[in-house]
């Protein structure tokens, strides 16, 4: 293997890790996971909202965010992991009309609602959750809502 010295651009990217992580560590971790799946993306929202993202990549995203939700180092990691896990499934439904989860409709409903209601999450991901809820309702118009004011934080484990 040939060793190449790092370019200024790569050194700057390494420095940016410190910048990203110091401002929003949990979201930075999620963004890194997303960029690791597709290096054209700058963030988890980029990956999950892009029309270029394939179903295979969404399944990978679902898997890593599910792991982050379970083993994340901080409560913020686990919360963002849960939201992005839901967002990955939502993206499959909305962008590809594919269900990439074996969760029940009720569990999906709770997960999407939690994302929709989480004001700390990017608005475009919350919109995605709203669209996914519409798809779910079209598939099952009688789907019951979660109890008022107590949205579930997580989708149940698969």
């Amino acid at each position, binding site marked *: 293997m040939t*060793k190449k010295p790092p370019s*200024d651009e790569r050194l700057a990217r390494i*420095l940016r890790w410190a910048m990203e992580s*110091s401002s929003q560590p949990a979201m930075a971790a999620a963004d890194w996971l997303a960029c690791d799946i597709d290096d054209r993306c700058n963030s988890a929202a980029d990956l999950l909202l892009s029309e270029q993202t394939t179903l295979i990549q969404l399944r990978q995203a679902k*898997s890593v965010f599910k792991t*982050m939700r379970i083993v994340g*180092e901080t409560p913020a990691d686990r919360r963002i992991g849960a939201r992005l896990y839901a967002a990955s499934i939502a993206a499959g439904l909305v962008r590809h009309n594919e269900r990439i989860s074996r969760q029940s409709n009720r569990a999906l409903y709770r997960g999407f609602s939690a994302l929709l209601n989480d004001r700390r999450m990017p608005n475009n991901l919350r919109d995605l959750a709203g669209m996914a809820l519409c798809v779910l309702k079209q598939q099952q118009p009688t789907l019951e809502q979660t109890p008022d004011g107590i949205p579930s934080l997580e989708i149940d484990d698969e």
Partner: protein
Amino acid sequence: MPKTDWSMIGQVAGGEEAQAAVLEQLVRRYWGAVYAYIRASGHDVHTSADLTQGFIAEVVLSRGLFESADQLRGRFRSLLMSALQNYLRQEYRRTSAQKRQPVSGPPMSLDTAQIDEQMESAKHSPESAFTAQWTLALVNRVVDRLRRECRVEGLETHWDVFEHRVIRPMLEGVEVLPYPALVERFNLDYTAQAATMMVSIKRRFARELMNEIANTVPKNIPPEDELTALLHDLERA
């Protein structure tokens, strides 16, 4: 805990017993940035190595740059670059060429190959060459320290995943090892586990990098400011 540059400089100035070792450590940290600046100023490899030795011998050792450094004057990076610029101006004015040898022999041998290769692959101003080598030295210190810490804490596999997936491709330009290969090589259960390990160490790396940057600035300068300045200089190159 790693020592800050300023606390190390204080040790040199204070004349403590470990003065020589601390001085050598400081010189080892920063000679690359000095050499890169000189090289990007247009000097050939040999002259650059010679001038680097001269700067270390005459300004750092004989005139006691570190001993006379004042933390209140600001960033250590700026102090070093400014001293180097003054030295090069004085050298330029010298009429007779002198063989530069420190009083007690060269302070260290300079392995300039990697820097020379880097200089060839990018057009640098002296300032940006200095910043690039300064940053690389920072990053390498964090790599060495974190690798050691991971070993001590039983996180070797975490480190290995991070190294093969992230840090070696970034620093050495080698291919990124795909997750299935990582899972197989390190006996992991599944891909997402490897990804989580990678992110866990990357986050720690980012934290350590910020600490390392904080070590090079006085307490009244937020490390984020120095980080922004470094990024600005690198991206301007």
